[in-house]
Structure formats: C-alpha cells, structure tokens
C-alpha cells in the first residue's frame, strides 16, 4: 500500500515525487513510457520564465515566480545545467510598446524582481543581433534556461534515492475507489494507494475521468522548433521573445544550456500527442524568428522537433482534489517547467491539509553529481582517465561524451533503457551529426551492458526498433 501514487513522471510528477520523498511516506510513480521526462518535458523551449506573463492572482502567476526561485537552488544542488541568462520581450510597434507596459505592470504585481523597460538602442546594445525594427524591450534578468529533461531526471533520481519507487512502462488503465484510497489498475498489475496524484500531462483528462466526472478539457497544442548548431549558439545571449498573443508566448530565439540555439514554437491545435513537424509550421517559425533576429543562419539547423503542451480550457493550471484522495496536477502547460517545484510544494500542502501525515525524514539527500568530462580542466581529465580509462574513450565526437559517462548513467538510480535515454542523460547524439557516428557505438554499449542483442535496443520508446536483422542469414525481428 502506497501512501501516494503519482501517475506520470514528467517534470510535474518528478517534482511531486521529490517533494514527497522528503517525508516519511511510501511513494510510487507510475510512468507508461520506458523513461522519465518522455512527453512534454523533453520537447519544449527549456525556459524558466521570469513570471510577468500570467494573469495576477492565477495559480500560474503564483507558482511560476516561486517555482523559478526554487529551480535556481535545485539546479545547483542537483547538478542540472542552468543559466540565468535573462530574457527580452521585443516590441516592434506602438501597440507592442503598450503591451510591454502591461507586462511590466503584471510582472510587478506577480512579484517579478528587477524588470526593466529598454529602448530599441538599449536592447541592441545588450543584444547586438536584434533587428533594427525593434522599438523597445522588456528586460527580465530572472528569466533563465535549463535542461528540462535533466531537471526532471534529477528530481526523479532524488526521489528514488530517497525511497520513492519508479515503475516504468506502467500505464494506468483504471482507477477504483477503495475504503481508504484507490486501487490503480495498470498493464503491470494492480497498485493500492491512499492518495493518487494525477500528473499525467496530455493524458491528465483521461486519468481524471477514470476517477471523477468531467470538469476540464485538455486541448493539446503542438509547438514546432528548430535546433541549430553551436556555430549559431551565440547568436543571442538572452531569451528573445516577441509580444505574447492569443496563441501564447510566441516564437522565441534563445541559447540553450548545451550551447546551441533554439528557435520556436508555433502553436497548432492537434489531436492527442501528435508531435509531427509540418512544412507550414517550420516555415512560420523560421520567418517569425527572423523578424526578431534577422541574421539567424538556418542552414546550420541540426534538428527539428515538436512538443505538445497540455493546455486546459480553464485558462489556468488545474490543481485540486477532483475526488476524495485524488489530486489533479493538470493543464500544466507553460509556465509548467518554471512552476514545477512550486506546484509540488503546493500539492504536498494540499495533501497535508487533507490529512496526509507529513513527517520530515532526517536523512533526506538532496544532492547529485554527474561527471562531465568535456567541461573539466586538462589536469582533471588526466586524473580521471588515469583512475578509469573509460573516461578517455570518446564515443560522441560532436559533444565529446565518453564511454565512462555513459556507463555512469547506466549505473545511476534511473538508468537509460534506450539510445535516446542515453542522449538525454549524457548528450551523446545531441550534436551536429545527430548520432550518425555514435549511434552504432551506443547501441553496442547498451547491448553489452544489458547482455542482449543490438536487435533488442530501441531508439527511444518501446517499439522503436533500430535494426531489423543480422546480415548473412542471421536472426531478426519477426517478419
């Protein structure tokens, strides 16, 4: 019997698990995919928003500002790539300038520190590649960027280190109330829990409706992106937004913590988790971004992707008890990544108020360290390789990722089960050749460590087989 079972291990579920693992509770997390952070969390703008966007008084406003303050601390403790680079919202017209005034006022109400209005010249002085058309900008020094999947992974790992149980490839199929909680049916058997937290992202409406009557609708909104080579990584040094519109925060141009340039998203209503890219969507993103930063060299693009945000029709995060002992953390679209640790705090507060006994553990561990060979000094590298030669064997040439780092990830609290799982943990395959060189090497290492055939290694989700069969009359997948 779990005290709390969390459905979904994206950024929200992971943050909730980490927060709950501070207390003397039996916590479980059910994730239907083979890895954490495999939905919206892995495909978004990777921005920690300062917090001037949400309507004052909304949950989004309250939790965003608190969340980014917590994120700063968590990223440092948990060794998550984080860069407090600050953000700009650009104005191209008088109307936009009035919007900036509104955002400034909202930001002040929401408690966002140090906001500042800049003229076009002041903005270009700080960010020389901005368009000459820029008339003004709202500068938010507390805007930041991070690695969203590593952030979620670090939170989930911390939860696991502190006793939470993560069940991967475990999809919830039904919820029935019991005398003292819930029975949770899954493809891997039945779980009993006193409390259920619904952090199922795009599936949150479906999970909610297994437990309670319909109260909200998730409207999935797809956003498409370009990721550009590191040669474009310094094109801007702040997150560059345009004025928000009815479709959200609009197309941004930003550096990433990995040194690339990210451009996107658009916002397109889609059915379910349709993360396909479209010609129209990519054209729109490209053209819109060039308005902010005309010199972006899109010929140096290395990847397109799309993510789907779980936008609730309520216009705000949906956080609250939908049924006895069933807590929704739903509709967590932007600024969900920014708000996550605050959402988790709030969730625990609500559980406490509902009668969940909260006794802090005295042995809670909140630390994590990842070996990053690339950023070490020559002396550090030398010492590390002398101790363990695997840290001298470069597997991913573009990102300089060593076999030692991959093996370290494979022995971490939540080891990867796929090639992309390795990529999310150590960056192998994230670079300009997109795994062309290191893909076969990573497959080889995974097969060796899992004692299986390379034929059994998947790209990302279960079912994403890479190799069909052996050549020369060998075995293969069923034809």
């Amino acid at each position, binding site marked *: 019997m779990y005290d709390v079972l969390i459905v979904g291990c994206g950024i929200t579920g992971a943050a909730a698990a980490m927060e709950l693992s501070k207390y003397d509770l039996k916590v479980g997390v059910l994730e239907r995919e083979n890895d954490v952070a495999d939905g919206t969390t892995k495909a978004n703008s990777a921005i920690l928003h300062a917090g001037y966007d949400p309507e004052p008084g909304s949950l989004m406003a309250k939790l965003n500002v608190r969340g980014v303050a917590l994120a700063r601390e968590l990223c440092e403790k948990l060794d998550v790539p984080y860069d407090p680079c600050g953000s700009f919202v650009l104005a191209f017209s008088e109307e936009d300038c009035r919007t900036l005034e509104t955002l400034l006022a909202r930001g002040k109400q929401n408690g966002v520190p140090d906001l500042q209005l800049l003229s076009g010249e002041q903005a270009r002085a700080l960010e020389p590649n901005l368009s000459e058309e820029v008339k003004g900008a709202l500068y938010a020094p507390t805007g930041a960027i991070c690695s969203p999947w590593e952030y979620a992974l670090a939170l989930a790992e911390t939860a696991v280190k502190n006793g939470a149980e993560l069940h991967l490839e475990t999809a919830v199929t039904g919820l029935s109330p019991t005398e003292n909680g819930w029975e949770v049916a899954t493809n891997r058997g039945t779980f009993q829990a006193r409390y259920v937290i619904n952090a199922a992202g795009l599936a949150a409406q479906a999970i909610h409706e297994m437990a309670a009557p319909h109260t909200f609708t998730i409207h999935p909104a797809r956003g498409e992106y370009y990721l550009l080579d590191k040669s474009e990584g310094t094109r801007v040094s702040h997150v560059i937004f345009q004025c928000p519109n009815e479709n959200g925060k609009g197309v941004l141009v930003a550096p990433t913590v990995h040194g690339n340039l990210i451009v996107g998203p658009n916002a397109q209503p889609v059915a379910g988790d349709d993360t396909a890219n479209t010609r129209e969507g990519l054209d729109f993103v490209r053209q819109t971004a060039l308005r902010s930063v005309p010199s972006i060299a899109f010929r140096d693009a290395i990847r397109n992707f799309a993510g789907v945000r779980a936008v609730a029709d309520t216009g705000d995060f949906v956080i609250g008890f939908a049924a006895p002992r069933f807590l929704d953390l739903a509709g967590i679209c932007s600024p969900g990544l920014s708000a996550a640790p605050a959402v988790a705090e709030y969730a625990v507060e609500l559980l406490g108020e509902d009668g969940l006994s909260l006794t802090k553990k005295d042995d809670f561990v909140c630390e994590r360290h990842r070996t990053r060979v690339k950023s070490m000094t020559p002396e550090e590298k030398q010492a590390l390789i002398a101790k363990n030669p695997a840290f001298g064997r470069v597997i991913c040439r573009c990102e300089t990722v060593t076999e030692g780092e991959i093996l370290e990830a494979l022995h971490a609290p939540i080891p990867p089960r796929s090639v992309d799982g390795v990529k999310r943990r150590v960056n192998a395959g994230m670079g300009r050749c997109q795994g062309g060189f290191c893909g076969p090497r990573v497959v080889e290492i995974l097969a060796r460590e899992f004692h299986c055939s390379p034929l059994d290694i998947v790209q990302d989700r279960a079912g994403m087989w890479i190799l069909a069969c052996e*050549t*020369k*009359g*060998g075995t293969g997948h069923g034809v």
Partner: protein
Amino acid sequence: MKELICIVCPRGCHLHVDDENGYAVSGNSCPRGAAYGKTELINPTRTVTSTVRCENGLYPRCPVKTDRAVPKALLREAARALDGITVKAPIKLGQVILEDVCGSGASFIATRAMPAKAPA
C-alpha cells in the same frame, strides 16, 4: 545501335555500341570502355562485393569481393552464397573465403586483414 553509360571508371562515358556490326564501340575514351561496351551486350558481368561473418574478429563482418567479375545474372545468388559461412579471425588480405561462387569459377576473397578481437 545500343547506347550505354560506361561503368569502368568514374568518368562515365556515353557509349554507342553497334550490335549489328561486330559490337563496334564509339564514344569511349579508353580501350577499357570499348571492351566494356562489347561485354555488356554479349555477357554482362560485375564484380560482387559483400561481407562474410567473422568469428572473434575486430568486427563481426569481414569485407570480401569476387576475384573476377561474375555474370550479372548471378549477382544476387552470389551474394546469398555467403549466408551461413563463418570465418575465424585472424583473416589475411586476399584469403579465399569461398571458391567457385555459384559455378562461376570466381572466388570470394577477403579485401582486408581482419585481426582477432583484443582480449577483453
């Protein structure tokens, strides 16, 4: 008159072969092209390159080729003839892997030296 693109070198000459007049070739830049034009119409042949399963080698496959061209009609059959054959490393460059491939008289030979895998 038949038109062909010569495949004996990267230049890719456009050949005209007079198949009613002793297979006289024009459009070639070298004698090899003339020979190719004639052979291609009478009895087209190709060198087959493939791999063979290699036990205990630095890599699980060793590249091979036929030591002479085989009739074009035998291409797929020749490649399939390597199925199920396993050669133990070390393999020498030029080592014969399979003789008289599909009755063609050609042999598959190794196109590299394949050292044994370093002990783990």
